[in-house]
C-alpha cells in the first residue's frame, strides 16, 4: 500500500509539474508578445493605429504592457490555486 502511494505521489508530482509548465508557456508567450513584440519589434506598424490620443505601439510600451503583466500574474495565481486543488497539493492553513 505504501509503495503504491509513493508511486502515485511521484506520478502526481509529474503531472502537476507538466500542467504547470503548460500554464507557464502560455502566460510567458503573452508576456513576450506584449512587451518585446508589441512594445519593441512591431511598434512601428502598431503606431499607425490610434488609441485616443496615443499611438498604439507607444501606449503598449509605456502603459499597456504593464497592465497586461498585472493581469498575467493574477491569472497565474488563479490557475495555480486550481491546479493545487486538482492534484491535491494544497497547503494547509496553520
Amino acid at each position, binding site marked *: 500500500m505504501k509503495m503504491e502511494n509513493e508511486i502515485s505521489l511521484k506520478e502526481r508530482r509529474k503531472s502537476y509539474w507538466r500542467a504547470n509548465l503548460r500554464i507557464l508557456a502560455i502566460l510567458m508567450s503573452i508576456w513576450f508578445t506584449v512587451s518585446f513584440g508589441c512594445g519593441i519589434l512591431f511598434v512601428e506598424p502598431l503606431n499607425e493605429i490610434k488609441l485616443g490620443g496615443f499611438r498604439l505601439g507607444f501606449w503598449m510600451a*509605456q502603459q499597456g504592457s504593464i497592465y497586461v503583466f498585472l493581469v498575467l*500574474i493574477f491569472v497565474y*495565481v488563479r490557475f495555480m490555486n486550481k491546479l493545487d486543488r486538482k492534484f491535491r497539493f494544497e497547503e494547509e492553513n496553520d
Partner: protein
Amino acid sequence: MDVKTWTYLIVGLSFALYIGIAIWSRASSTKEFYIAGGNVSPISNGMATAADWMSAASFISMAGMIAFGGYGGSVFLMGWTGGYVLLALMLAPYMRKYGKFTVPEFIGERFYSRTARIVAVICLIIVSVTYVIGQMKGVGVAFSRFLETDYNTGLYIGMAIVFFYAVLGGMKGITFTQIAQYVVLIFAYTVPAIFISLKLTGNPIPQFGLGGSVADGTPLLEKLDKVIQDLGFNQYTTSVNGSKLNMFVYTMTLMIGTAGLPHVIIRFFTVPKVSDARLSAGWALLFIAILYTTAPAVAAMARLNLTETIQPGPVGEATGNLEYEKRPEWFKNWEKTGLLKFEDKNGDGRIQYYNDKNKTFTTKAAKYGWAGNEMTTVDKDIIVLANPEIANLPGWVIALVVAGGLAAALSTAAGLLLAISSSISHDLLKGILRPDISEKQELNASRLAMIGAIAVAGYFGINPPDFAAGTVAIAFGLAASSIFPVLMMGIFSKKMNRQGAVAGMIAGMSVTLLYVFQHKGILFISSTSFLGSMEPNWFLGITPNAFGAIGALVNFAVAFATSKTAPEAPQEVQDLVESIRVPSKG
C-alpha cells in the same frame, strides 16, 4: 509656512514614524531577523516589496530618463515591471517552498557545494553594495538640496535612521517601515502628477491625461512631438534608445536583472505559504504599477511644460524665447543647485533651448541668430524634483516630494543592507566558517554584520568611488548574468550539477564585467577603458548597461556545456528539486 519649514515638518514626522515602528518591532530570533518571522500577509509583503524595489532611481530619476528619452525610455518601464512576471511565475513560489533564509543558501544546497554558495555570496555582495551606494548618495543629495544641510550631515542622519530600525528589527522592522515608506512615496509621487495632469489636460488621472488633449484641442503627445521637433529634437513618441536590438536586449537585461536581485527575492521568504508568494508578487506589481504608469505621464507633461516655458512664442521670432531676467522663481531655485545651467551664447538676453547636435536644425538656428543651445545643463532629475514648483503647487507638496524621495532611498537601502548582512552572518559565518554557533550568537552576529554593512555603505556614500556612476549597469547586469540563470537552472533543470552552476556563474559574471569595464574603464576609471565608450566598438551596438542579458546567455551555455563533463546531480538533490516544485507534501 514656507517650503523649508514644511519640509522639516513632513520629513521629521516621517522619520519619527520610522523610529516608532523600529521600537515597536524588535526582532528576537534569527527567523524574525532574516524573514520577519515568516508570517507577513501577501498584501503587506506586496507593499513592502514595492518600497524595497522602488529606489531613489525609480522615484527621482526615471521620469526624467523617460522625459528626455521619449519612446526609448520605455525600456525602464517594461524592464522594471516585466521582471515581476518572471519573479511570480518562475522564482518566488519555488524559493518560498524551499523556505530558508537566503539566496546563497538555496544555491549552496541545490548545487551541493560550498564553492557555489561562496560564489553566490560574492555575486550578491557586489550587486547589493554597488546598488546601496546609489541610495546613500540619494539620501545625502535630498538633504543637502532641500534642507540646506551639509551633504555628509544628511548622509549621517539617513544612516542613523536605517541603523535604528534595521539593526533592532532586522527584516521585521524593515518590513513595517517599508510599508509606511510605500505610503509616503506613492502619495508624494501621485499628488503632483494629478495636479499637473489636471492643469494641462483637465483629466485628474495622469494615465488618461497622457492620452488626453491640451487646451487648444490637440492631443498632448502630438503637441509634444511637434513642439520638440520644432526645436530640432527627436520626435518624442518614436525616438529609440540606441537601436531596436539594443532596446530589446536592454529590456531583457532589466527584466531578468530585477528577478535576480537578492534583496527582492528574500522578500518572498517572509510570507506564510507558496500560494501567498504568488499572490504577493501580484500585489507588489500592482503597487509598483501605480508609480510606473504615472511616470510616463509626468515625463511627457513636464517635458512639454519645460519646453514651453523657455520657448513660449514661435520658433525663430526674436520675441519667441523667454527673457532670462523674466525667468520664473523655480528656474532660479534650480540654477542654484546646478541642475539647470544657462549660458547666454548669443548675448540677446533670451534663452534658446534646442538640439544643437542636429545639423540641419543648427543651420536654420544660425539664421535666427542663435549661437548654440543655451541650456547647457538640464539634469534629468529636475523632471520630478521641480515638477511641483513648475505646476505652482503649494509648499507642502514640495515637502512631500522630498519625504517621498527619502522614503524611496531609505527603504531600498534597508532591504539591500539586510541582503548583505544575512549573507555574511548566515551564509559565511553560520553556513561555512562556524556552523556550531548558537542561534543567539548568530542573531548578534547578524546585527554586527548589519552595522558593518551600514558603515561600509556610508563610507562609500561619503567617498563615492569612480564606479558609483555605473551602479545601475553593474547591479542589473550582474544580477541578470549571474544570479538569475543559476536560480532558473536550480529550479527547472533537475539534473544540473555543481560544476555547471559554478562555471556558469563565473562565466556570466566575468563576461558582463569585462564588457562593462572595457568600455567604461576597469572599476569605471575611464582612463583604463581599452575600447572606449563609443558606438563603433559596441558588440552589435549594445550599450554596456544593456549587456547583462548576453552575459546570462553565456552563463546558460557554459553551464550546460560544463555539466555534460561531470556526473548529474545526486539523487537526494533531485528529490529536493522535485519537492520544491510542488507547494505541499500532497
